Structure formats: C-alpha cells, structure tokens
C-alpha cells in the first residue's frame, strides 16, 4: 500500500466543479508540489485532505486508512498537519503559546488537573515545562528565538508564516501540507524557508505536499509535481516533464 493516496476526488460547490476526478500518490519522504493558476482548486484539495471539506466522490488513503470522512481534529491526530494560505494564527497569544497549542494532542492535562496546577511539581506544572522544552527545539530549528514572547499579531508577515510552520511541526505530522509557504516573503526569507523545508524532510523525516506559485522554487525543491487547472489534473510527474508540458504552459501563459 502507498503512504498517501488520493483517488478520483470530486467536489462541487453548487454548479461549480472545484475538483473533478483528481488522483495522485505521494511516497514517504517525498516533497510533492501542487501547482496551478488561481482558482484551480489547489486549496480546496488541501481542505478535503485535512477534513475541512467533505468530498462528493473519491477516496483519500493515508497509512492504509481511509480518511475522507474523518473530522479535522481526528486527521491531525492521525498525523497530517497543515498551514494556511492566509495565516491562521492565534493572534492574541505569543509565539511560544501558539506553538505550544500544537502540542495539544500530546498533553494530557484536563480541566481538573489544570485547576490544580499548584507548583511546578503538580501534573499540569510538569507538563507545561516538558512541552515548553519541546517547543523550544522548534523555536531553535526555525530561528524564532527573538520573537518567542511577542504576540504574533504584531510580527511581520514572513515571521508569522514561520510561526505557523512551527505550530504545524509541533503536532509532529508524518505528512505536512504547506499552502503557499513563501507567498509574500522577501527573497532572503524564501531562501531560508527553502532550507527549512529541506531540513523538515531530511531531519524530521516528514513527507511534504506544498502549493506554491514561485516556479523557480517549485522546480528546485520538489521531487514530483501535480499541475491542476479548473479542478482537473493537467499532468503529473517530475519537474522537467511538467515544466515542458504544453498544457501547463498554456494554463500559465495563455494560448498563442
């Protein structure tokens, strides 16, 4: 069985077919890119995978489990993490607390043990300390030390993107969905992110599926590419092949 598989996925909103008959497979340890013009259905595809939308037809398999009718929090628990195109952070909390929320699934403190957090030796106290250590590793990994205690609402755009990436890493996913990770970033920030994505795959062993518009980055970073337009697959394959495919050129550059 494959690591991650999408089969004949279809979803329409009213009369608009956002996705029709999309299929692809991702192997463990791959960096897989989804490209396509605006409104092609890329984010809809991610929303189906992470359980926010329920597809009309088709199946999604992850680690030999069918996941297309699971709830989003259940899918997170199964090991699929994601980031959002328009950053979705907890704006009133600081960087540390945002990433700490990513540890939610690994923490056990409930209402009662929370109320009885008296001293650092109480259950909740110990847990708060242990998981803050874990978060610190992520902060180090992404070089976010300078903004650890800053409310994320006040951070610059690129930094907020990194905090969101950090939060998704805190869930320790096996499969990470990145929705336009370097949109709106400066050239330097993009360069850093390029290394981060490689490190996430190589050091943490996380498989990555990403949506990206920066073609240089996509061609450089990904092992394979899926090109979609109007909710349909145009082509799928290695970067060199996709790059030269006439329909991809047509979708991006228009007809002659």
């Amino acid at each position, binding site marked *: 069985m494959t690591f991650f598989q999408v089969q004949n996925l279809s979803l329409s909103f009213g009369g608009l077919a956002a996705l029709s008959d999309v299929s692809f497979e991702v192997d463990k340890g791959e960096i897989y890119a989804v490209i396509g013009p605006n409104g092609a259905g890329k984010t809809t595809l991610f929303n189906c995978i992470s359980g926010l939308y329920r597809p009309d037809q088709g199946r999604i398999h992850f680690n030999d489990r069918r996941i297309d009718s699971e709830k989003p929090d259940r899918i997170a628990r199964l090991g699929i993490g994601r980031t959002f195109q328009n950053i979705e952070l907890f704006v009133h909390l600081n960087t540390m607390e945002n990433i700490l929320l990513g540890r939610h699934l690994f923490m056990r403190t409930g209402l009662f043990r929370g109320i009885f957090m008296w001293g650092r030796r109480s259950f*909740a106290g110990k847990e708060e300390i242990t998981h803050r250590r874990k978060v610190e590793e992520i902060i180090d990994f992404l070089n976010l030390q300078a903004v650890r205690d800053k409310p994320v609402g006040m951070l610059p755009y690129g930094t907020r993107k990194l905090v969101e990436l950090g939060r998704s890493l805190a869930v320790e996913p096996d499969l990470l969905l990145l929705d336009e990770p370097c949109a709106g970033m400066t050239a330097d920030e993009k360069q850093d992110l390029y290394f981060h994505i490689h490190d996430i795959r190589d050091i943490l062993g996380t498989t990555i599926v990403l949506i990206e518009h920066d073609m240089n980055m996509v061609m450089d970073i990904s092992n394979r590419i899926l090109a979609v337009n109007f909710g349909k697959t145009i082509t799928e394959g290695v970067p060199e092949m996709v790059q030269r495919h006439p329909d991809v050129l047509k979708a991006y550059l228009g007809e002659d």
Partner: protein
Amino acid sequence: MKMKRNYYEDVQMFTSGVVLFWFLTLLTGLFLLPLVVKNYYVYVANYMAINVIVVLGLNLLVGYTGQISLGHAGFFAIGAYGTLMLMVKLHLPFIVALPLAALITAGFGFLLGLPALRLEGPYLAIATLGFGLTITQVIGRLEIFGGREGLHAPDLTIGSWRLDTDIEFYYLLMVITISLALAARNIVKTRVGRAFIAIRDADIAAQTIGVNVVLYKTLAFAVSAFYAGIAGGLYAFVLRFIEPEIFTLMMSIMFLAMCVVGGVGSMMGAITGACLLSWMDLQLRNILNLPYIGAWLESISKTYFSITGVSNIQFIVFGLIMILIMTLEPLGLFGLWIRVKKYWKTWPF
C-alpha cells in the same frame, strides 16, 4: 530587567515577591473588612462577590472562547432553585447541595452548548436569550418549584456552624470566590484554556492541530454554567427568598455588561467590572440623597425624563457611565489599567 530562568515562570501565579505581597495584602484586607465597615457594606460586598463569580464564568465563555451568552440569568436561576430544592426536598446539607446544583447547571450549560456549535455572534445571542427566558417561564409554571409564590431558603448550616449573619456568610463567600477565581486563572493558563483561546482566535486552525471544537465549545458552556450555578445557589441565601421574577433578561444583560465593561478576556477585568457595576447598581439608587446634586438631578428627571413623576435618573447616570468607559477604552477597565501602567513605566516620555 527581570529575566525568566525557567519555563514554569510562564504559568506561575506569583511571578515575583511583589505580586505575592499584594495578593497577601488583598487577602488580609478582605479578611479585616467586615470588622471595620458597617453591616450594609458587608451586604454590598456579598452582592459583589456573587456577581464576580458569575462574571468569571461568563468571561471564560465570552472573553476566552469567543461565544456569547444572554442567558446566564437562566443558569443563575437553575443554581438558585437547584440548591434550595436539593436542601428542602431531599434534605441534603448545603455543602453537598450547592456543588450538586452547580453540576446540574453545568449539565444545562452543556445542552445549550450543543446548538451553539452551529451558531455564532448575534444568532447565538438570540438562542441563549431564548434559553434564559424559557427557564424562568418553566420555573414559574411548575408548582414543585413554588410557582409564582417563590421559595424560602432554609437555615444555612455547614456542619455545626450556623451562618446567621451577613458577616459569617461573607467569609464563606470569600473562600468560594477566591478559590473559583484562582481556578479560572489556572484553567486559562493550561491546556483547556489554551484550547478555548484557540477556538476564539482561529477555530479552523484549532481543528487542524487536533483541538476537538465540539468538545471544547460545549465544555466552555458547561464550565461557565457551573460558575453561574454556584453563584445562583449562594444568591438564594443572600435574598433568603427567591421567585422567578428575579431572574430577568435585565440580569443576563447586566452580567454581560459587567464582563464587557471590565474588559473581555482578562481575569482582573472580570473581577473589577463585576465589582464596579454591582457597586453602581446598589449605590446609584441613593444618588438622589446626595447634597445639592441629588435635588438637581431629581428636578431634571421630573422635568424631562419621567412622565409618572417617579425619578429614574439613576438608570440614566448608570448608562452614561457605561458609555463613557466604553468610549474611553473599548477594552474596558482592564484596558484603562494597561494604559495607566504603560504611562508610568515610560514616564516622563
């Protein structure tokens, strides 16, 4: 500059000796209060403490989870009637009846939380408002709850301690209020509270990191209702007599106003907001007795506002003060406090 040395300091209650000192000073002050002030002010303090309990719970729901409720008078009523019914009909001691009634209230909170999963903002406000109104109607119609006649509170005893006076009741109330305040503070600093905040700030992102939104939204309603239930049970003993007409829509609105005037999403805001508005509620009734201003206000009221000749100027003053606070600082009293603190920290710049 103060440096953090370990992670526990992030969630520590008393981050420095200064904080601990002020907390102990406050406790001592509260302990000595009934010994130095008139009995009436002990009653005022009791009234404040009960509102503080409700608003602490309401703040967990409104301020931290981002849900709204205009039905907290309903929970308050369930707590009050529940406690009295358990004591009168089942002959349970107060110390068992109060938490049990609050748990029943929490159950109702959980039930109200279920439709809340699909509703937001103004729609949720109306749904909860409907709940609040229904509860008093149902209680008023059922003979077992005393119907329109109301219920009398039995004598209040804990073990062999009989609480006859306001002062004795004051000490009981303080213990409960402070414990519940510390509990609320610990909830928002740990996992459950963070999940509440996550739902408030970005509920979709919260789901994708594994927060069960259904569970935590209903839990927030249940916890909030538990606080209102405890407060309601205690309020029954402040009044010594309860009837459905006490738990009006106006009461729900006052609870929400206390929460907002204090500053949503802040513990100190909830406490100060509840204290200020309960104080105003009781004290503005005497505004006409003030020298000079009183007579002047009364004449204004009679000339311009009240047709019947009954003076209603205290409500107008009340409203004006609320409008003033909210215009000055949308974050309420808590926001004002932050501004003052910042001013002194950066003074003279």
